[in-house]
């Protein structure tokens, strides 16, 4: 086998391997989320509306709507959306698998890295005890809205309608 052919053969096999590996999903990174982080994450970028969504693998309601979040992101590219997984490290792999399965690998993800969860909840909402899904809705059009419940929760829908109404 000539050297050039050998090189191209090896390169091809490498690329084919990469294709096969990429079929298992893109790598997913969870940024650490601890005390004091919420205020920074809640900062709007260029006044774009922002949604911060807290979820867990032991929350069936959260899992059930991950697919709807994929659709929501595609339909609302004008909104910055941040996902925060509230599980322990030992559940993080299955959290990643759930996100990848629902096509959310490339969204922005944080994971709880601080076991003082009362403090993490308190920094977001003084009355939050950890119920999920929990979503924070921020825009320049009105006060921040905290929603316990799924994407179809009336408070979420109302915030979105207000956002759309102002833009129209």
């Amino acid at each position: 086998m000539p050297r050039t052919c050998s090189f191209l053969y090896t390169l091809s096999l490498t690329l084919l391997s990469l294709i096969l590996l990429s079929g298992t999903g893109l790598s997913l990174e969870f940024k650490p989320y601890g005390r004091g982080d919420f205020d920074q994450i809640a900062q709007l970028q260029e006044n774009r509306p922002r949604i911060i969504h807290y979820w867990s693998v032991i929350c069936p309601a959260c899992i059930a709507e991950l697919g709807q979040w994929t659709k929501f992101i595609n339909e609302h590219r004008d909104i910055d959306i941040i996902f925060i997984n509230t599980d322990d490290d030992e559940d993080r792999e299955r959290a990643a698998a759930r996100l990848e399965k629902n096509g959310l690998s490339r969204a922005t993800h944080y994971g709880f890295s601080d076991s003082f969860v009362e403090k993490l909840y308190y920094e977001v909402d003084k009355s939050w005890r950890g119920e999920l899904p929990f979503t924070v809705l921020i825009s320049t059009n009105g006060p921040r809205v905290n929603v316990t419940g799924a994407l179809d929760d009336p408070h979420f829908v109302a915030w979105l309608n207000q956002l759309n109404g102002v833009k129209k």
Partner: protein
Amino acid sequence: MTYWRLFLFTLLATISIARAQEAAQPSVNGGESLNKPAMAKHAPPACSDPKPDCAMTIYPAFDKKGLLWVAYSVGKTLYVASSQDQAKTFSAPTTIITLSDGIIDAHGDARPKIIPLNDNSLLVSYTTRPDKMMIGTIFTAKSSDNGKKFSTPQPMLTSGGQRFDSYVVTPKGRIFAGWLDKTHAAQAKAEGKEFAGSGVAFAWSDDGGMTFKGKNILMDHACECCRMSAALGRDDLPVFAWRHIFEGEIRDHYAAKLSANSVKLIGGRVSNDDWAINSCPHQGPALAVDTKGAWHIAWFTKGKNRQGLFYAFSRDEGKTFSTPEKIGDDAHAPAFATLLATKKGLYRAWKEFDGAQTVIPIQQSNDGGKSWSAPEILASTTEASDHPILVASRGDVFLSWGTHKEGYRLIPLRLAKK
């Protein structure tokens, strides 16, 4: 030439697949933070030694000789240890199992348990969640040599999915087990039907937990995210309390006792909070039955009719409940109540957090829950902590509480004067 063709084909395929994947993914809205360095300094992870101080959850129980037993997990290993001096020192832990697949369900409302039995044997329970599934399997193991060795853990059931088990033992030694069971939910899913929540299931054991009989789902549609609580009725039948999913996704509470023939649960709705929500509160109720047979329940809600932590009692076995009474200071998010009934009185404790410090207030009632002493702060911490649990031994009452900073503590309650 063949190799050039193979190379070009592979290169094009790689580019096409990469583009297809990009198109299939939602846009990276808010992705600016991906490139930021890790932000604030976080608390160090819990220690990894096999001792109660390093556990996220700890379950305490006294045996009839007054020895304290605790069940807890660190990582993927489940341990049991005992203390003769009220948790000042512990025996070398006994390892029950180290999981090779999945994790031990030991977080928040879910935790391994230890049940000292009348014949001085011990029963341990824990739930595993396999790596690729969200549903759990409940296992039990037994020790007849004072906790030195435990039998090979046996599953309560091998299919369907179970979580949030609880146990009560009658004076004659019958063990009642209750748990939340996803079997009916799985069947409905397989048939393409909608199904809300889990079933409320139970079984009993007359051989000290070696085998459980009569495994059955007695009611459907319990909220699958919250613990179920159990207490023994005055007639030696188990009473269960759980968050139920009523029509319209209303997640209020239900309490019921097993019928004498073990075929149904008889009780009623604790209160009409009207919390219509498609979510996981991750906070189940507390339950106690006092010496007169009255049921006492504490729970958390964010319903239309009331929000916060509440308490009520029933003196007619769940037919009616007293008007819900608010517990704690709403400004400090009271949560995770624990109830205990002894011959000396009734006790309730819970968690409050003011933004910097978590405290455990406790109250005592000497009139069956009609009135309560002023809240007294029994313990505090400024770091992460487990849920509080009230536990009794020979008439003495203790707060069992694991905190990251102080470690595991068993704090005796000085009985309040009314």
